[in-house]
């Protein structure tokens, strides 16, 4: 017997919620988790060394002592830049195949489908909820919520710019004028990602409602209750697939072994 899968979130009984809270669903492939944490470590190191590299009064974004501290750790500014460039190149080398071959699997079209009505409403209500201006329920979301999608769009737009401008500066490509403008592009693109990263890290590590999402990046799993409440569309899709599989596995009437 198969249970009925609701097409919109319905209130759960205490028992139902308790059972769902115990069941886990696979959210992330291990490859995604490895890439995620490699990416996180890279961004921390690259932003730290990058900020320390900018010492001019006209352009610096951190106090002089910070630059002196980081330069001191690396021994010299040349070592600091070499590290920044080498790690950046490794990052590009590892992320490029992921971006190309993982596109079909991970960067799904559903994430690009950003301007859905539910997503727009989700962003507005989420903001109002934080500011305590509404008690409305958040619209059902897919595997990634509108906030995650918005951040993904910023990252997708900016990361190619960060990588390209970084390579231009590191290897003095094209011409002096292009290198000069690459400095500007690198600054701007990294700034946009970092502003988004602050929200991303806050939501993942500090915001209590998204705690299971944080742990899903370590275990790969989320509990079904969290999936039901925060990513209903995704939950429903997974359940429908499960149901379809179960039905396909049922022996046909009249076949050997059938009742």
């Amino acid at each position: 017997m198969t249970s009925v899968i609701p097409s919109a979130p319905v209130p759960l009984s205490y028992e139902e919620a308790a059972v769902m809270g115990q069941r886990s669903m696979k959210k992330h492939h291990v490859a995604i988790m490895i890439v995620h944490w490699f990416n996180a470590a890279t961004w921390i190191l690259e932003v730290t060394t990058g900020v320390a590299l900018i010492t001019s009064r006209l352009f610096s974004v951190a106090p002089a002592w910070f630059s002196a501290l980081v330069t001191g750790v690396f021994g010299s500014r040349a070592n600091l830049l070499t590290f920044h460039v080498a790690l950046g190149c490794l990052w590009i080398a590892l992320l490029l195949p992921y971006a190309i071959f993982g596109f079909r699997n991970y960067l799904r079209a559903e994430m690009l489908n950003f301007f859905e009505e539910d997503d727009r409403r989700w962003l507005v209500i989420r903001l109002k909820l934080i500011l305590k201006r509404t008690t409305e329920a958040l619209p059902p979301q897919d595997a990634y919520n509108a906030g995650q999608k918005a951040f993904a769009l910023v990252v997708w737009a900016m990361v190619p710019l960060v990588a390209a401008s970084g390579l231009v500066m590191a290897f003095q490509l094209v011409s002096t004028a292009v290198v000069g403008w690459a400095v500007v592009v690198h600054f701007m693109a990294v700034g946009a990602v970092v502003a988004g990263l602050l929200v991303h890290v806050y939501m993942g590590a500090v915001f209590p409602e998204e705690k299971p999402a944080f742990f899903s990046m370590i275990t790969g799993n989320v509990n079904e209750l969290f999936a039901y409440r925060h990513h209903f569309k995704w939950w429903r899709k997974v359940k429908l697939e499960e149901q379809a599989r179960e039905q396909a596995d049922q022996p046909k009437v009249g076949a050997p072994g059938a009742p």
Partner: protein
Amino acid sequence: MVTDLRKCVTCHACTVACSAEWGVPAGQGRTHVRTTPLAGTFPDLMSSPMVEQCNHCEHPPCLEACPSGATFKDVAGVVQVDKDVCIGCGFCVDACPYDARFIHSLNRKVDKCDFCAPRRARGEQPACVATCTAHAKYFGDLEDRDSDVYRMVFRDGARRMETHSVAVGPNVFYLGKPEHLDLALTNFPPHPPRLLTAGQTLQKVVRPLLIGMVAATFLGQAIAFFAQIRKGEEEHDD
């Protein structure tokens, strides 16, 4: 450094020695010898040579323009470029009022006079000083009262090539008749320090925007965080 323009015979030995010493590509140079056009009326005509190079200024505009911190002043006050840190953006080239910097056409990084730092480390004079056929160039410690340069600057009146509008404290001094020095300065004046459009965009648009964007996000989160603390621990779906 002091250059005695009265002795200079514009033989270009200094530029050749410099280029040979440091492998400067043809068509580029760390030092240049120029000659002003003739001034005055016949038969009272005059002209002056001018030997240009990095002036190792007291307040070098190139240092501020460098985004990667490759340009620095060493303990002796010599303005140097760390090639391993230079990214070749060209901001400093435009910033130098004396056009003493250039992008090396082979390694595509900035290049300029460093008073022959490796030669000095070996106890030798800079190549241009050692080669000058007329002995017109002098290098030494301006704080050493027994040095030639101290005597020329503080007793003989060697002067800086600077104007009222562009005074960044160049540390290459010139000796010569006042009218010759004036002629050289009028013909080859320093230009006010410039910042390339890219540099200006970075300084005036991108940097404030970036700091504002990150600060606003941070502030928003701080507010949300304190609201969360005030609300206290709640049960969630974990």
